């Protein structure tokens, strides 16, 4: 498979979950484990153009796939992706644990829908749980990134 642009090949046990393959074999500890019933989304990565909960897939199922994790979001020169910038600008994170999964989901969401309404953003991230922020600033962070991609100025909605 290709992970963050690099070709990777390993021999693994069939039952090895993709999340553990990424974290333990490839040392990509950005995606996290937050639950055991596929609800929280902290493990979300982008796989062949889809937001996928990597805890609910075996690594072997991902053979041949192209995977993007949080570690691959910044540009090669280190410039942060608009989403990474937006999360910081808008205080869209506190403990940071849901953040990698949330950003990867937002990444695909903005590709599905480059100008989502607030309601569409909330529905779009409904597979990612956060305990710290109450989502309000996460919505703003995603709106910030959408505006940046469109080249329009981002105006925070009045409280």
């Amino acid at each position: 498979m290709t992970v963050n642009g690099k070709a990777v090949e390993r021999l693994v046990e069939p039952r090895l979950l993709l999340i553990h393959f990424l974290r333990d074999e490839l040392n990509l500890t950005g995606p996290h484990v937050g639950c055991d019933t596929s609800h929280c989304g902290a493990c979300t990565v982008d796989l062949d153009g889809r937001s996928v909960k990597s805890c609910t897939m075996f690594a072997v199922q991902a053979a041949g796939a192209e995977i993007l994790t949080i570690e691959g979001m910044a540009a090669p020169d280190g410039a942060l992706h608009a989403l990474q910038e937006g999360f910081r600008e808008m205080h869209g994170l506190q403990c940071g644990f849901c953040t990698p999964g949330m950003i990867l989901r937002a990444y695909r969401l903005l590709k599905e829908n480059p100008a989502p309404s607030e309601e569409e953003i909330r529905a779009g991230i409904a597979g990612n749980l956060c305990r710290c922020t109450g989502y309000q600033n996460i919505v703003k962070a995603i709106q910030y990134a959408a505006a940046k991609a469109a080249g329009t100025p981002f105006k925070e909605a009045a409280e």
Partner: protein
Amino acid sequence: MIPGAFEYHRPKSVADAVKLLSELGEDARPLAGGHSLIPMMKLRLATPEHLVDLGAIGELKGIRQDSGTIVIGAMTTQHALIVSDILATKLPILREAALVVADPQVRYVGTLGGNVANGDPGNDMPAVMMCLDAAYTVLGKQGERRISARQFYRGAYATALAAGEIVTEIRVPVPATGHGHAYEKLKRKVGDYATAAAAVVLTMSGGKVASCAIGLTNVAETPLLAEEAAKIVVGSSLDAATVKKAAAAAEAITSPASDSRGSAEYRTKMAGVMLSRALARAKSLAA
């Protein structure tokens, strides 16, 4: 959190998949999207010794129209149902139901075949398929056969599938143009299974219901076809009294589990409420 060990197979064709399942016997399970099976394996509630991954079989994907029937490959994801133009115009209730299945990530991987075939009373598509009078094409070592959705569900996790058989495609007769539809799902939050849900497809003529089919989700061990309730509304203008009677008829066939979504009594009543709302919404969409 950690599944038990198993052997993994990744056939390239349906024929190979069926052959493998037949050879490996009852310790083998087919793997579609895996978003029902893998969570059960992680809790060690399911411990198959072999998994036959259907993910590399191209012939199981795709949506096409075959004269009056829409044919959907079993490995078509919920996401693909949502973005399909054919379905948006011809079978809008599928898109509507798919949008309330689980969450965005699960929809990218979960398949229609998996949703209709595993017999989980909580899955949304079975009741919709019964409502649409769909049929499943099934392939096993004895060959291919077709099973009507309305005959497919026997009990919780018990279906008409014989050992080693898999659903390869779902065949849905295209509803009449101008039909009204609604899938009304009561749930605790996005991503939850239904507390109760009702699928309605109907046609109107001269202000009265000309035809109607009703499916109910998660209020019994199987999805339910509410035939009596549908009979009651046909010929009516869906006036309050008729809807009330239909809801009562629907409630009468339910036997939901009591769980954290609510008591059996509550869930039965909610089946009635969801049906009433689905009828109203379907009517508003009908030509």
